[in-house]
């Protein structure tokens, strides 16, 4: 007889495989970029400007995805761009998660005055338009990798705080939390041993989602030219440059755009998939 649970599981597995596979590929590409990139991502050669990708007429051998208007290799730039994108995703995502989830957990479980203070902060924070806020921050901090990461954490911790607070409140009302108290566990101990494991799947899902958001924010900031110095290639920067010559050389815009899209999608799908994996009731 067929197992009903097995049937439910299959799409989750496929989703995990595809998104995890793409991200693994990206990590590998980022790590080995100097080894596998066919060209120097920064090398300009105006004679090789706007060469089309390999399958089109007039393609130059060795430049698989074509070149931009300055003759730089698109594939190599995407590979090097992955380094920056993944560093931002990992560091900014994790820091945002740590700050936001901790505050959310405290607010949702302890309630009372800690909750009032944190919630008020979140409300005020969310009233700022995020992208403008980021641009303002970068303008103050000056462009650079650190600034981008700080900007993302400062803007996005509220996303974690809000969701985790609500989760912690729901879990806090459950009787197993009261029963931990009856057993003599401290408030803080209850939070760590009873509440945290039960909000962990949500934290994981949000974390991977946040990594995708970090990649997007970095791209947006690069797009408006507020990111890292122009000599290291970024996807956002490539998209910005490609936009100006889209009618003559669409590939300069389209390839980094596809990479960005697939990466962000993979992060969010990985989160959903992991969330289901983590849940003992669904597992």
């Amino acid at each position, binding site marked *: 007889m067929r197992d009903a649970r097995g049937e439910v599981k299959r799409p989750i597995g496929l989703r995990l495989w595809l998104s995890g596979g793409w991200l693994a590929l990206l990590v590998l590409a980022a790590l080995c970029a100097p080894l596998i990139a066919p060209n120097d991502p920064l090398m300009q050669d105006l004679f090789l400007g706007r060469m089309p990708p390999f399958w089109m007429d007039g393609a130059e051998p060795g430049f698989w995805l074509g070149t931009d208007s300055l003759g730089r290799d698109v594939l190599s730039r995407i590979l090097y761009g992955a380094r920056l994108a993944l560093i931002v995703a990992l560091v900014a995502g994790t820091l945002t998660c740590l700050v936001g989830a901790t505050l959310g957990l405290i607010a949702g479980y302890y309630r009372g005055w800690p909750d009032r203070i944190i919630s008020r902060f979140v409300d005020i924070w969310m009233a700022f338009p995020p992208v403008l806020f980021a641009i303002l921050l970068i303008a103050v901090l000056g462009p650079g990798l650190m600034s981008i990461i700080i900007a993302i954490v400062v803007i996005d911790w509220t996303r974690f705080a809000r969701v985790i607070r609500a989760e912690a409140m729901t879990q806090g009302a459950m009787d197993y939390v*009261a029963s931990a108290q*009856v*057993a*003599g566990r401290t408030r803080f101990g209850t939070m760590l041993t009873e509440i945290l494991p039960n909000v962990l799947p949500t934290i994981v899902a949000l974390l991977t989602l946040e990594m995708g958001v970090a990649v997007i924010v970095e791209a947006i900031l690069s797009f408006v030219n507020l990111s890292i110095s122009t000599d290291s290639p970024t996807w956002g920067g490539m998209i910005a440059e490609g936009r100006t010559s889209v009618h003559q050389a669409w590939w300069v815009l389209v390839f980094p755009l596809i990479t960005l899209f697939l990466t962000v999608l993979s992060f969010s799908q990985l989160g959903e998939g992991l969330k289901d994996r983590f849940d003992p009731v669904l597992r």
Partner: protein
Amino acid sequence: MMYEVRDLRLSFPDMAHKPLIGAAPRLEVLKGLSFDVPKGAVLGIVGGSGSGKSTLGRAMLRLLEPTGGTISFDGTDITHMGEDQLRGMRKRFQMIFQDPMSSLNPRRRVGGIIAGPLRLQGLDGLTGRVDEALDMVGLPRGFAQRYPHELSGGQRQRVGIARAIALRPDFILADEIVSGLDVSSQAQVLNLLGELVRDLGLTLAFISHDLSVIRRLCDRVLVLHHGEVVEEGATAALFDAPQAAYTRELLGAIPLPDPHQTWG
């Protein structure tokens, strides 16, 4: 006396009616309750929704802090005792919860759930104690490896009982522990609880909305209505000759499985 409760009051801020500026009005849930629980007694606490019976239970275990009156447990005043001091006493009074699904952490195995309180109280020989507790509630020892969602409702409630008795407390509070169960497992869980109370010499407070269940298990009954005690007495006397109008109304409303009952 196991418990002496005097003029117990408890109120919550009523956020729904909080004015824009200033403090929220208080919602009185317990309005001055007084009663005793003698050692070895099985006290039934009955009332409808909103009667305050669950709040009373949580105040007796000091999961909530009363806003007035006193609660003393075995001669010690615990009304405003701090969390640190309470922790030392907690193994003496335990609780079994209404919804076994929400009172058992879904991410823990049954063994871990039962061992949790034992570990916190610094007891050793955990595996032996967990096995013993499972034996006492009539569950196979292999259940220690299972997750709560793999068990039936009746089995989950047995785990809840095992967790409470594993500490060998003096007092157990059972809050509506059979209301979510089918009648067949209801009968089993009640019989089990009755036997355990007798064998271990426990004092039990049994909160329920179901007078038929109370009649079966308890030797004293406390009837609550809108946060006040409307009647208290020995079970047989209270059922034979209910004094308060509310008790009579409650009794008269129970649909007995008998087509000849005069039910108005």
